[in-house]
């Protein structure tokens, strides 16, 4: 059981704990704490959608995120499986194989940031990396404070979006790291509509015109074909933000992720808000078409 594991003084140096993570956010946090995960689900897609920290080649791929391959894990069970809310049915059965701990920063009753902090501390406790976790949290706090200082005078409201296809975006709001950044800094979210359990709403691009003065931040990657199709999207091309060069593009990061993703988002937002964005949005549009 997991309690037995936590009580035993884990000798991290002599025998590194072998951790399997079903959730990309947990995988990201493990890497941030300096733990090389033993197995992670769906690594090819992790590399596309989360990107950083990059996954070591030695980590095992254990299949789909909501159905990690148990036959694989059973042959050389890890010392701990960190399961997720998406994959949490029937843990009693898994516990005969290895200790299992449900770790997730969504589906809690706390705010995203609170939940992510306690997730990080929980992972650190289980892997005996408390100092590293406190350092990471410290670092995140500093990044957030720096971001807050830098963004103090930014008045322009902001849409943070990720494209689903050329006509639809996920616009982020309350309930994930974008919400955290908006509440911790002076930034205003231009999206005030309802959001779902993961803190986003699926909308068509014309609704980005509801706040004409807003700046738009696009999280990459684009789904296939979107870069091309956007050139024909007259709404997108006519949005004041696009016409007046107030659109910025940031590298792939996992908006539902952990503190590293949060820091990356904070830095990216500061970058794009302070520095004038690339005027030639067309080049950014066609750049790096994503093909996993």
């Amino acid at each position, binding site marked *: 059981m997991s309690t037995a594991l936590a009580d035993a003084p884990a000798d991290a140096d002599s025998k590194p704990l072998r951790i399997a993570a079903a959730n990309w956010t947990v995988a990201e946090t493990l890497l941030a704490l300096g733990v090389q995960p033993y197995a992670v689900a769906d690594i090819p897609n992790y590399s596309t959608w989360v990107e950083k920290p990059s996954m070591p080649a030695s980590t095992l791929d254990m299949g789909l995120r909501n159905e990690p391959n148990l*036959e694989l894990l059973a042959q050389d069970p890890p010392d701990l499986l960190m399961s997720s809310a998406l994959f949490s*049915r029937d843990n009693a059965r898994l516990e005969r194989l290895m200790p299992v701990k449900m770790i997730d920063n969504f589906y809690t009753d706390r705010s995203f940031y609170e939940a992510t902090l306690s997730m990080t501390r929980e992972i650190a406790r289980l892997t005996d990396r408390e100092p590293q976790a406190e350092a990471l949290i410290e670092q995140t706090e500093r990044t957030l404070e720096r971001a807050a200082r830098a963004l103090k005078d930014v008045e322009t409201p902001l849409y943070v979006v990720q494209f689903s296809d050329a006509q*639809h975006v996920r616009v982020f709001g309350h309930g994930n790291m974008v919400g955290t950044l908006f509440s911790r800094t002076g930034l205003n979210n231009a999206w005030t509509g309802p959001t*779902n359990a993961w803190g986003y709403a699926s909308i068509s691009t014309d609704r980005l015109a509801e706040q004409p003065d807003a700046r738009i931040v696009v999280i990459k990657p684009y789904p296939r074909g979107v870069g091309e199709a956007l050139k*024909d999207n007259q*709404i997108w091309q006519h949005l004041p933000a696009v016409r007046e060069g107030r659109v910025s593009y940031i590298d792939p990061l996992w908006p539902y992720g952990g503190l590293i993703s949060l820091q990356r988002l904070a830095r990216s937002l500061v970058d794009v808000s302070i520095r004038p964005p690339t005027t030639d949005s067309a080049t950014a549009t066609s750049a790096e078409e994503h093909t996993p």
Partner: protein
Amino acid sequence: MTSARSPAWFAIGLTLLALGLGYATLDIQFADLSGHWWQAITTPDDDQIRQIVMHYTFVPRLLVAMLGGAALALAGCLMQQVLRNPLASPATLGVTSGAQLALVVATLWAPSWMLAGKEWIALAGGIVATLLVFALSWKRRLAPMVVVLSGMVVSLYFSAINSALLLFHQESLSGLFIWGSGALAQDNWHDTQFLLLRLGIVMVLALLLLRPLSLLDLEEDGAKSLGISLRKLRFAGLGLGVFMTACVVSAIGLIGFIGLAAPAIARLSGARTLAQRLVWSMILGALLLLVTDLAVQQLAPFTASLLPTGAMTAALGAPLLLWLLPRLKIGGSRPTPSTGLTMPRQSAPNRRLWMLGGLTVVACAVALVVGFMLDSHARYPSLAGIDDLGLIVDWRLPRVATAAAAGLMLAIAGTLLQRMTGNPMASPEVLGISAGVAIGVIALMLLPLGIAPLSGSVMGFSGAVVALLVLIICNRRSGFAPERLLLTGIAISSLLDAMRAIVLASEDPRAQQLLSWLGGSTYYASLTSSTWIVVIAIVLAAMALPLQRWLTLLPLGAPTAKALGVDVDRSRLLLLALVALLTVAATLVIGPLSFIGLMAPHMARLMGFHGARHQLIGAGLLGMLVMVSADWLGRNLFFPYQLPAGLIAALIGGVYFMWGLRRL
């Protein structure tokens, strides 16, 4: 239906509804532009984003909805005329899902082709689906019900392949969920121009064909004597319909049932000649899609998820199809007392049963022992040794046992249904009983009810019972004519398909779990749960065996059976209850789409098991054999990624079903 009415009244009603909803949308969404509406539509000010939005989204969306609806109705009308089949339509002939699958495959593996012209890829997919449907119904000389049955099976099969692809490409295909469920959002005039041009061309060509096509209303010989090449005429008419459908699918995605509903309503409300039917179908089709889309737009501001118009029309279309069925005059065959496949009676079925049993045991053993082994960081396929007993007992045995039990139950349910109805294509999956279970479970998931431990099975059972009631009510008057019965079942299944599309497009967090359950994964089988399901399977199978007297006598027809002392009503009711129980238990663990219930009894008969007892046992063994193999393939084909067993079984079983259809 009374013929005093004219489609005009229906059209006027829909127009008023559309005007009302349209005005409401304008008033709510574009109140700030009031007074400038016309100017915004015709000459928007480039610097006024609100005018741009109105010019590039609201107006093209209205037009695309009308053009798309009209185009699908035109396609449906042409298909119905050419095939002289009131149930033909782009969706029921499998053309839409063929086009969709082609586009998904192209997006994944040949994105550059998409730039060359989506409609040609969609057209290729549509043509493949059409050819497949024709190949399947050729022997029955394209009999209306057989054509539609083949079409819907092809359609369900293609959407099973689609599900498999989606399981592996969740993140990068989220846009395809949206498109696949028919969202009509517009951002330029391209789609409008695209559809207008193609609709115009097809309309002109259809006009040229109007006279010869209307001669098809005469008896075939009459038309022939007028010197028309029927084959060329049919080819041209059908080709136009398929092309029109491909254009709509590539422009705006999957829109269900408009192509079936609009011509049917036009006909039922009094449009007589082909010209009348074409015109009224297009008007009604345009209005139907427009009204649905405007209603969907009204709801959009209140939710964080997308409401897909196309899936909504499909969900509304399934009940419509059920309602239309008894009202349409469809030439169907009588129930045939002796079942379809005739194979030479072979001797010694007992010996072959033992051989089959042996084979099943071997398959189970292989499924338990052969798998991927892990050696530090390399994986390779290998035999498990005695040291790996824990692995086998804990992680392979429950899945193998669950698959076997589900296969057994579905096979027995299928055998019961086929013998009881004297219909060689009857099975829990094809008759929509499994879909009923799934609809019940999805409803449970979506309703904000507390989840009691057994609620899944209770809702599933209610779903199965409702599906059975629908089957009985819709078919009692026709005396359970086989094709009509099957079509009812397929309509229930397509309702499930629409619900699935809506849930997937909503990006509900539970959608992935749902997708994996609908695919029929044995992933969550544990020793305890598999013990239960095995016990249930054995008990229900043991209950079915003593019923062999009924199963022998019922296929002879009710009067004969009665004369031989069978209480027909009571026996049917008991058998149906048993079928419902078997289906619920199997569907809850293996999902609704596996085709085992159809396939196993057939294979049993092909192997020469004709007697009721032999067929029951043979089918049961075959069901276990196929399901265990499917589960093994799903676990190992893409190790460590796993495909659900039900999906693999459906892909195997679908081929078998199509093959069986040829001989229906």
